């Protein structure tokens, strides 16, 4: 099903604002990007009676990086996790409104969650490699989706590790246990594991909060490498990280999407006073 702009709540202000002026020289417009990849229309997420995400309408533009910021408990992770239906695992969690991915209803009756999560991969706060070899970690997803041929798997493993900028560090020890890698390497391995099943969207839930500055920088560089190929959404508590890595920023407060704007605009002249108070640390 292809949704019209009206039906998806296409935010014209955000669409219009794929902006040369707000993109620094190294952040050029993405070719073929900028169309709504995920579209929320009056989308709410409930835990029982509690409305954790409140009637959010927004377009997430393809192949750009969108950061989600906001205080703890504001609904940003809930919103992120609802995009590939990770919240289905939580009892009493249900949604209202529409959430579309590539024009398809994420919460539609006939949506295949496994296929959805193949297309929309996720990396979590704490690196969580399987207690298996590096090779098997990456090959796990493709095997699950039916790839059996060893040569094909080897190709996927190398490509994924290269895309995640960790190939050079692990290429001579692919048979070693992934738990022996450093925290930063483990997190990039998790990104590679996600890339191995050829997703379209990467959801990153505070991917660097457990990492040191050097490993954090590598993940941020990686996000820049992947930008333009994948649509990336990142939840972060680190304002500087949001401003460094993202093209667009969404500010949530108490479940409400308060502001969604080009990052450079949001961090220099936010339109909403609440956004300004939050990002300048005046929040009370």
């Amino acid at each position, binding site marked *: 099903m292809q949704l019209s702009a009206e039906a998806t709540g296409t935010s014209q202000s955000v669409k219009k604002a794929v902006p040369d002026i707000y993109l620094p020289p190294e952040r050029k417009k993405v070719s073929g990007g900028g169309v709504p990849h995920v579209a929320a229309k009056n989308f709410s997420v409930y835990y029982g009676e509690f409305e954790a995400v409140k009637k959010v309408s927004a377009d997430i533009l393809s192949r750009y990086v969108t950061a989600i910021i906001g205080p703890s408990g504001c609904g940003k992770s809930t919103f992120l996790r609802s995009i590939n239906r990770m919240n289905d695992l939580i009892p009493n969690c249900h949604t209202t409104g529409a959430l579309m991915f590539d024009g398809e209803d994420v919460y539609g009756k006939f949506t295949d969650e496994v296929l959805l999560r193949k297309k929309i991969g996720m990396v979590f706060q704490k690196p969580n490699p399987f207690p298996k070899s590096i090779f098997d970690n990456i090959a796990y997803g493709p095997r699950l989706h039916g790839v059996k041929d060893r040569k094909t798997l080897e190709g996927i493993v190398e490509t994924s590790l290269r895309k995640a900028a960790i190939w050079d560090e692990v290429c001579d020890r692919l048979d070693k246990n992934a738990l022996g890698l450093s925290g930063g390497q483990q997190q990039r391995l998790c990104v590679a594991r996600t890339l191995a099943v050829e997703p379209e969207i990467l959801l990153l839930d505070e991917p660097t909060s457990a990492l040191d500055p050097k490993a954090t920088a590598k993940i941020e560089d990686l996000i820049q490498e992947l930008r333009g190929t994948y649509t990336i959404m990142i939840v972060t508590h680190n*304002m*500087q990280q949001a*401003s460094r890595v993202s093209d667009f920023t969404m500010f949530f407060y108490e479940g409400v999407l308060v502001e969604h704007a080009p990052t450079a605009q949001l*961090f*220099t*002249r*936010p339109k909403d006073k609440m*956004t*300004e*108070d939050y*990002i*300048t*640390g*005046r929040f*009370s």
Partner: protein
Amino acid sequence: MSERPVHEHIKELSEVLVQLSEKVLTNFKDALHAVRHQDLQFARRIRAVDDEINAAEVHLEEQCLAFLALQQPVARDLRTIVTIVKINDDLERIGDLAVHIIERMPELGADIMDRYDFDRMGGVAAEMVRKSIEAFVNRDRPLADEVCQSDEMVDAMHRMVFKKVAEVMKSDGSNTDQLLAVLSVSRYIERMADHATRIALEVIYLVTGEIVRHSEDTFEKLIQSLRD
């Protein structure tokens, strides 16, 4: 809403800027006073104060750069610090103009000051600087607009001095050195008004987040003010 130490720090930097502006304005007025009274002692003091202004400007800039590096401000905090850095630069240049004026002192005197109405012209320019700083302190967009509009008044005074000097030059026995000094002083005051206008435009950026320095609207308004 609670003010955090980081915001107190921004307030302190703003206060330092205001103090610097007061020093610059006093020195400028003293320069005109020194020329009128041919007061060499006063003139020496103006140079000494300008050295203090230069040191204060560097110190304030260093503090702002450290703030940017360490606090990484955003939104209005970022705009405030950037505005302070820019106004700081304008004030230092106004300080230099006071020194330039006393360098022309030997060719000038009370009669010249009266003939070319330099006290009034300097008064208008100084008031523009004062108002632009007041607009900064109070985040007062209308006052900033008022300063921008006043610039044309000083420009008109400068054109008038130019015209008078050109007429005197045509007459026999004109004192060329003196006339060149008159033109220079007029130009210095006109430049001071330009700096006040720049400060006002920076205040508009601070308040609105819009850089209007070269905007068509500003140009149109300028053209309109010239017609009015």
